[in-house]
């Protein structure tokens, strides 16, 4: 019987190929939508899962997460630097790190942050080392810059016509291991450098902790793309870098000597200084990094917080959700986004299902016509003594075989297409999308096979019911 079917298919190979391709493409469409949506969901969730709590100025939750976790460039309102200082001292916090954005280089976003954040969220360096001077940078795994390369940041991005910051140069000190998140495409520099470039936070040592807000949102240059942190979801002990005064003992010889946070304030001087430097900042490449944040730290778009316990996380979120700040769990915000994405997926799935339905209808039409043309052959088979069930099986198997091959091929094409889309997406965003089949795909494959089994039985039943005498007369 198989040989007879194969001989038949060989004879009608062109039609068979068309049927297989038609089915394959319709199936591939649905498979791609499913795989891509799942990959996007998993990939973005993984990108966010190292960041337990994000705190920013009051505004859009979604924007806060997109900017800080996914490094989407867009202006975020700033919140007072006081928040950072307060959180640094909070006993419920394992580590807290500011993120500052706004600059880019060669298409890669520059993110100002702290060593605490980098060491807590990335597994290590594949090359080089952590930055320890203001003029050093650490690049993500996907940034195509060698260790030692010069980075001349541009304000904003090239696409929106940003200007290069004159005289500001970072040197790449190290390259991080891949994380599969947008941070792989980021250039990480000390937050203090970002502040200095934008004329903020100079001479912190001149300011007193109490009551001086170094800058207001208005002072800070506009587009501050979001920054993002890699949280690993584990509880870390307090970072040695936070509140560590040793790191900034050296006098940098440029009058920016850093001292422990208690240095004598000169409020008037500080304010003056800020005005002067607005937008005309430069960095002192050799300055030591001060990661001991005081209340006089400049305004920030976001800080990333690693609470000690889940209870602490909820308490902190509650506390920082009022007034001028907004605290969110990225996972929660993503869940809302997924709901929206789910709607889009529903539409796409409906389109895919529609196309599958159309193909199914076309197939029924084609095969019923085909059975009409084969009436004599089928009649002859019966006349020569082939049992009716054999006739049914031949017609059924022939069509089912084609559709099943098409479905198999469709899953393959869908997988390859989803992988290709994911690769493009990863190149653009840094988010690694885990494309792969899951258990529920087996179910949908079985569902499709079941549907095609029923579909194939339509012409098979027609052939089964055909009177051989009438068929031969035709």
């Amino acid at each position, binding site marked *: *019987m198989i*040989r*007879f079917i*194969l*001989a*038949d298919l*060989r*004879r009608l190979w062109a039609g068979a190929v068309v049927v297989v391709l038609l089915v394959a493409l319709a199936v591939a469409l649905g498979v791609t939508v499913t795989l891509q949506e799942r990959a996007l969901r998993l990939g973005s969730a993984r990108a966010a899962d190292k960041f337990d709590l994000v705190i920013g100025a009051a505004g859009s939750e979604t924007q806060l997460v997109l900017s800080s976790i996914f490094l989407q460039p867009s202006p975020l309102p700033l919140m007072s630097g006081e928040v950072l200082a307060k959180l640094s001292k909070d006993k419920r916090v394992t580590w807290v790190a500011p993120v500052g954005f706004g600059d880019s280089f060669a298409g890669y976003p520059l993110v100002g942050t702290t060593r605490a954040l980098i060491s807590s969220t990335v597994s290590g360096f594949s090359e080089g080392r952590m930055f320890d001077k203001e003029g050093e940078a650490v690049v993500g795994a996907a940034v195509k810059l060698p260790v030692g390369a010069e980075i001349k940041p541009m304000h904003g991005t090239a696409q929106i016509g940003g200007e290069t910051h004159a005289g500001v140069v970072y040197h790449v000190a190290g390259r991080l291991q891949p994380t599969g998140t947008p941070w792989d495409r980021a250039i990480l520099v000390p937050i203090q450098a970002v502040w200095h470039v934008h004329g903020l936070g100079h001479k912190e040592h001149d300011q007193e902790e109490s009551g001086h807000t170094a800058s207001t949102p208005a002072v800070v240059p506009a587009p501050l793309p979001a920054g993002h942190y890699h949280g690993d979801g584990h509880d870390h002990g307090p970072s040695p870098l936070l509140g560590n005064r040793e790191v900034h003992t050296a006098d940098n010889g440029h009058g920016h000597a850093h001292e422990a946070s208690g240095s004598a304030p000169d409020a008037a001087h500080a304010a003056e200084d800020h005005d002067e430097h607005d937008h005309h900042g430069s960095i002192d490449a050799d300055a030591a990094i001060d990661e001991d944040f005081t209340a006089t730290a400049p305004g920030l778009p976001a800080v990333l917080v690693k609470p000690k316990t889940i209870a602490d996380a909820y308490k902190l979120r509650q506390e920082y959700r009022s007034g001028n700040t907004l605290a969110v769990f990225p996972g929660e915000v993503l869940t809302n986004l997924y709901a929206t994405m789910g709607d889009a997926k529903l539409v796409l799935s409906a389109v895919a299902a529609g196309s599958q339905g159309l193909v199914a209808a076309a197939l029924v039409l084609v095969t019923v016509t085909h059975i009409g043309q084969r009436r*004599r*052959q089928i009649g*002859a*088979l*019966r*006349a*020569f*003594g*082939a*049992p*009716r069930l*054999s*006739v049914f099986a*031949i017609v059924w198997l022939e069509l089912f075989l084609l559709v099943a091959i098409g479905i198999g091929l469709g899953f393959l094409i869908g997988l390859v297409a989803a992988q290709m889309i994911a690769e493009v997406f990863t190149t653009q965003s840094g988010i690694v999308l885990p494309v792969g089949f899951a258990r529920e795909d087996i179910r949908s494959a079985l569902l499709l096979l079941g549907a095609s089994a029923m579909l194939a039985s339509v012409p098979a039943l027609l052939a089964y019911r055909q*009177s*051989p*005498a009438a068929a*031969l*007369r035709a």
Partner: protein
Amino acid sequence: MLALVIERLAVSFAGLSSPVLAIDHLTIAAGERIAITGGSGSGKSTFINIATGLEKATSGKVFWNGADIANLSESRRDRWRAEHVGLVMQDFHLFPGLSAVENVLLPARLARVADAALVARAHELLKIVGLSRPEQKIETMSRGEMQRVAIARALLRKPGVLVADEPTASLDADAGENVGRLLIDMADEAGSTLIVVSHDHRLIGRLDRRITLAAGRIAADSAVEGVAA
């Protein structure tokens, strides 16, 4: 070897006032060699369909060796036909893409009865009908060769009755002569009753008895003169 007895048979189609075939009584003895003739629309094809169980009689009885096939269900008639009837048709109804021997074995294989003995018999039959290349693809054969493959197929399961519907009509004279002789010889050899619908006088001349149908009734039933001419 099968004998046929038909009693009060009537076959009508919806929309036709008179039956397309009406036979009060007909007996064909086992091993007899019968020619059926008649113009188009005389009921020849219907007679073949009824006799082989391809069609169900509207009324009446069709006994083959005493068993009434008119009462059987479609599936059982199929099975009965597969076991007892060898069919040879004007258009051969061979299946392209398959070899000669695969064509001979196809119905038996579909009925799941093709064992080693039957496969050996298929090869032997092809040799007997004069085909030396059993693996030759059917579409590369001449029409005469194709009809010989069809005869081998019809005889594979040693049917009690061999029914041929215009077996020589689509062949040239030489091939037709050849096929006609093969039919008779092989029916003899297999011990099958032979029923041939034909207009081919040379073929009819070799048979024992000639039944002429007209308008669905038996118009003449006589021994063929000059047997074995």
